Each structure stands twice: as structure tokens, then as C-alpha cells.
């Protein structure tokens, strides 16, 4: 059973990291949204599966599922309402971004000490997702993709939480989910204003402030 569980855990962690790595590379916002939604749905599915049908545990898992659908809808509408004439170019070429991401993945997660997860795949996967989320937000210029970077980073914490059954209390899970929903709504409002102001959701146009 333990072997099967570890196998599944490594599969989920690897798939989550793989999807995040793909977001580092893809050009189109809609493709990036699809990848992150798939990642979030996979984690929500695992959360539902882990409840084992216990009703009292379904709240957190259900909220995670609801969050995924809500954020995908909000961002999807945001993308539909702000059609770019051509994909926003990232300041850094895709190959360079991949190299940066892989270098960070090779360096940072293995450096972390044992964090008490008891499951090395979950630990490395969680740290990798937070690192990749930060890289996506900082190396991509499309505002929608930067928002997706935040969601990838938050999925890192979600993956960590899923590694131990009901270790994270429902209040914290719900609070984080509500926060992320709020942030997504505010971020899409910003994206819409930026698009209205500049005719593109390209954050490179926001470079007036410096000393």
C-alpha cells in the first residue's frame, strides 16, 4: 500500500512540476491557463480522493475544486475580453527561461533539509512549484501569465498540504482559498485596466518607476 502511495505521490509531484515547466515555456495565455487549470484540477482531484468519501473532510477538497473552477472562469473571461493582436513576448527567450527554471529546480529543492513530510516527492514537488511560480511571475511579461505564476506557487503549498492527510486545518485551507480568489479578482481588474490603458496586457509597458 505504502509503495503504491509513494508511486502515486511521485506521479502527482512529477506531473505538477511538468505542467508548471510547460507554463514557463508556452507563449499563449490561453494555453498557460489550460495547463495551470489542469494542474489545479489534478490537485483538487487528489484532495477529493483522499477524503475517502468522509463528508466532514469534503469541505476543504470541495473548496479547492471550487477555487480551481472559479479562477479558471475569472481568468478565462479576462482573456476573452482582452484579445491580444499577437502573443505578448517575454523579455527572456523560452530556451533561456527553461535553463533558468531547470537550474533552479536542480539547485533549490535538493538543498532543502528534510521538512518532516515523510514523503520526499511531495516535499521536492512543493518546493519546486513555489520556485517555478516565482520564476513564471518574474520572467514572463503577460499580466495574465504573471497571475498564473502566483497560482502555481500557491499550488506548491497545496501539494505540500496534501502530503499528509488532514494535517492542515480546514479554516486555514478555506482562508487561503478565499484569499487567492480575492487576489485573482483584483488581479484581473488590474489586467483589464492595464489592457484598457495600453492596448495590451504586457507588463513591460509598466516600467516608468525607477530611481
Amino acid at each position, binding site marked *: 500500500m505504502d509503495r503504491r502511495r509513494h508511486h502515486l505521490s511521485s506521479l502527482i509531484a512529477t506531473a505538477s512540476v511538468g505542467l508548471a515547466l510547460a507554463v514557463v515555456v508556452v507563449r499563449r495565455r490561453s494555453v498557460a491557463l489550460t495547463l495551470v487549470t489542469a494542474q489545479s484540477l489534478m490537485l483538487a482531484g487528489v484532495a477529493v480522493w483522499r477524503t475517502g468519501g468522509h463528508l466532514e473532510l469534503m469541505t476543504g477538497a470541495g473548496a479547492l475544486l471550487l477555487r480551481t473552477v472559479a479562477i479558471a472562469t475569472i481568468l478565462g473571461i479576462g482573456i476573452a475580453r482582452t484579445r491580444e493582436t499577437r502573443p505578448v513576448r517575454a523579455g527572456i527567450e523560452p530556451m533561456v527561461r527553461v535553463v533558468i527554471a531547470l537550474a533552479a529546480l536542480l539547485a533549490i529543492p535538493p538543498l*532543502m*533539509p*528534510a*521538512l*518532516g*513530510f*515523510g514523503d520526499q516527492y511531495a516535499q521536492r514537488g*512543493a*518546493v519546486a512549484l*513555489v520556485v517555478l*511560480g*516565482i520564476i513564471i*511571475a518574474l520572467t514572463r511579461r503577460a*499580466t495574465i501569465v*504573471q*497571475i498564473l*505564476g*502566483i497560482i502555481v*506557487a*500557491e499550488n*506548491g*503549498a497545496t501539494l*505540500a*498540504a496534501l*502530503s*499528509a*492527510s*488532514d*494535517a*492542515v*486545518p480546514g*479554516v*486555514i485551507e478555506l*482562508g*487561503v482559498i*478565499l*484569499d487567492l480568489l*480575492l*487576489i485573482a*479578482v*483584483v*488581479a484581473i*481588474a*488590474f489586467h483589464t*485596466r*492595464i489592457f484598457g*490603458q*495600453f492596448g495590451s496586457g504586457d*507588463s513591460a*509597458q*509598466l*516600467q*516608468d*518607476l525607477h*530611481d
Partner: protein
Amino acid sequence: MTDQLMIPLTTASIAMPIVAALVLQAARSERAAHRLNRVCAVATSLVGLGAGLAMLTSGSHATGWVITDTASGIYVVVVTVVALMSALLSPAYLSGVQGQFFSARRSVHSYYLMLYGFWAALIAIPVIANLGVGLIVVEATTAASSVLIAFSGKPRALEAGWKYLILTTLGVSVAFLGIVIMFVASAPNGGGISQLDWSALPATLARIPHDAAVAAYALVMLGLATKIGWAPVHNWLPDAHSEAPAPVSAMLSSALLPVVMLLAWRLRDAASAAIGTTAATTPLAAFGIFSVAVAVPFLWQPMAWKRLLAYHSLEHMGIITVGIAIASPLALAGVVLHFAGHALAKALGFYAAIPLYQVQPDATRHSARDVAASSPATFAAMAVTAFTLAGLPPSPLFFSELFIILGGIESGHVLLASTLAVLIALAFIGLLHALLEALQGSPSPDHQPTATIRTGRTAPILMPTVVTAIALAALTACAWLLPASGIVRQLAQGIS
């Protein structure tokens, strides 16, 4: 005061701004909203001040989700005062600007909704008894405050709000990973939310393997650092503080940064036993000194008034952080004095930007010139701010910096204290140079004041200046009593 009274009073101090935010939405016009705002601000602050003073005088209580102690009392009082002044000065700001982030018809209503929501969160953070819930509220402040920063809808404001939103949310995501580690490592089969109560946190961290506890602590601290604006994760700070509406800049600088720092302070106290005092304190000392060092070169440059104040926030948060890291009674007296003095002076400085920009619109981007001649009341406000922040005697910040440095030397942190002293001296010289040029220098050839001062425009800054100057003088007068006071004794015993 008993728990039975303290909990409802504390709850009311958080609920009042939320009620006010909702009541203000019912105002039929902008004018009515401004009038209602005055009533709501005074009523809300009376409850907040009552709660804060009760916390200060009734010792430490931790019941359910609320912790009320000396630290929360100090923070609630100062946040309430700053939020009250910001709310009262908001009509003066709003009369001169057309917010474009929201629809024009509901712009003022939306501003008040966000402002009072922000106020509620700022009161809640110091009294929440749980690290995890505290972080969730910190994240919630990002939503309200980022929209307020971008209120004008101008490209620079959008840029500042966007940067703030992305960077601080990423930071909090990192902190959440630290929180999950604490939960998972301490009780893999679930131990309840109370594990992260400030009172339970030392035991929770003690149950975790040492390396995991250090990693979790470092991740949460790093997340908080992005929100506090400690260097090197401070990139959003100068932009957000300089582009936000002046009343909001005051709340960001004088209330939000120190309030989030209180979480870092409580966390340090809670983690010291489990991970060791050195491991818990070193990040604070490093962030503090580095923040002051990064701010110094910018304080030497003439720059736009609010941007200069923003770099000052970086410097002063650094000084307070070093004081918390030293943690001797004398240094903690300095921390309390510095927090209160900085909050009052910095808030006044941001409010002074309201009439300043009406007189010199290009002062939003360039250093102000010849303010004394063009607007004496604005000059007075800027002078009170500048001389207080520079730490010139008899400013309370002179005594607070002295307390922190002497406290450091007295407790054996000689290198830390002397490095801080050198950096403060460098900042002082640079700031004086930049400010004297800004306040009294001749207008540059390309600069002409674009509007004549009218009494109606200068009036809003005169009263806050007088009140703030009196409050700062009172703080100075109390300074010598503080090191031996019960407040400092309780802080020195630990606040987790």
C-alpha cells in the same frame, strides 16, 4: 479588564470599520459620502482607541482567536490614530483627483469601501492569536491596498499597484509553504489550528525536527519580509508609497509595515526556544541593517517628496527591526518610541503632499522647491516631518535611535549597534542635504509654481500639523519614562 469585556471590545474595533465601509455605500452623493465619512471615522476611532487603551492597561489575555497584550494595545492605538487622520483627510485628496480605477459614478464610494476594509484588517492583525490566520489577513490587506494604490488609474499608479500585488502575493505564498511545513511536520495526522496560536507555537516548533523548524521559520520570515518591504525584497515599496493616494500612503507606511512586522516580532519570540535565539534573531538583524544600508544612498538624492518618504520608510523599518533583534529593555523602549514617532511624522509628511501637489503639480515627479514661500502651512508640515525623521533633537526619533544603539551596546551587540549608528549618521547627513534643498532652495529654472495658494487649500494641513507636533512633543517628554515602564517590562518578557 476581564476576557468577557475584552473580546467584545476587540471584536467591535474590527467590526466598526467594516460597518462603516458598508454604511458609506448608502451615501447618495459624493458630498454625502464625505460627510458620513467624518462621522464614521470618529465613531470607529473611538471604539479602536478604547480597545487599544484597554489592551495597554489590562495585561495579557489570549482567548479563542484573540490575543490582547501590551504590543497589540500599542499597535491598535497607533493604527487607529493614523487611520482616523487618513479618513479625515481623504475628502481633501479626493476633491483634487478623479479616480479612474473604478467607474466614475462610484469612485468615491469604492475608495471608502477599500479604505475602511484596509483599516479593519490593520486592526485585526495585531490582535489575532494565530500565525496562520494572521497571514491570511495579511494577504487580504493586499487585495484592498493594491486597489487603493492604483486608485487614480494613471499608468504609474497601475504599475505601482501591480508590482505590489504580484510581489507581496508571491511572498505570502512562500510564507504559506512555511505554515504548511509547521502543520505537517508537527502533527502529520492533524493537530488542529490551535497549533499555530502564538501561545502554542513554541511547543509546536519544538516538536518539529530542528532543520525543518529552521526552514519553516525562514520561509515565513521571507514571506513577511516582502510585505514589510525589508531590503532586498523591497522593490515594490518606493513605487507603492509614492503613487498611492496620500492618505493611503500614510496608512501603508505608518500602519501596514509595522503591523506586519509585529507578526515577525511575535514569530521570533515564539521560535527562539525551538530553533535557538541566534538562528531566530540573525535574519531580523540582517534584514534590518541591510534595509538601512540600501536606503542611505537614496536619502542623499533630491527626489520627489513622497518617494523620499518611501525610502525613509525603508530606513526606519530597518532601524525598528534592529531594535527588535537586539531586544534589550532599552532597545525595546526605542522600538516603541520609534514606531509611534515615525508613524505620526511620516503620516503628516504624506498628508503634506496633498496641498503640495496642488501648488506644485510637478512635485509628483521632481523634488519640491521653494515651498516656504509658496505655501507656508505645507512648509511647516514638511519641516515637522523632515526634522522628526532626521532624528534631530528634540525629536522623539533622536531618543529612540539613541535607545536602540545604547541598548545594543549594553547587551553586547556592539558591532550591530555601531554599524547602525554609522548608517543612521550617513542617512541623517544625506537627508538634511536633500531636504534643505527641497524646502528652502530657489526654484529651478524650469520650475514655476502653477497655482496660487488659496486658504481653502492650505487649511486641511494646518490642524494635522499642530496636532502632530504636539503629539511628537508629548512623545519626547515621555521618552525618559519609557525604559523603566511596565510597557517595556512586558515587551521584554516576550510577546508570543
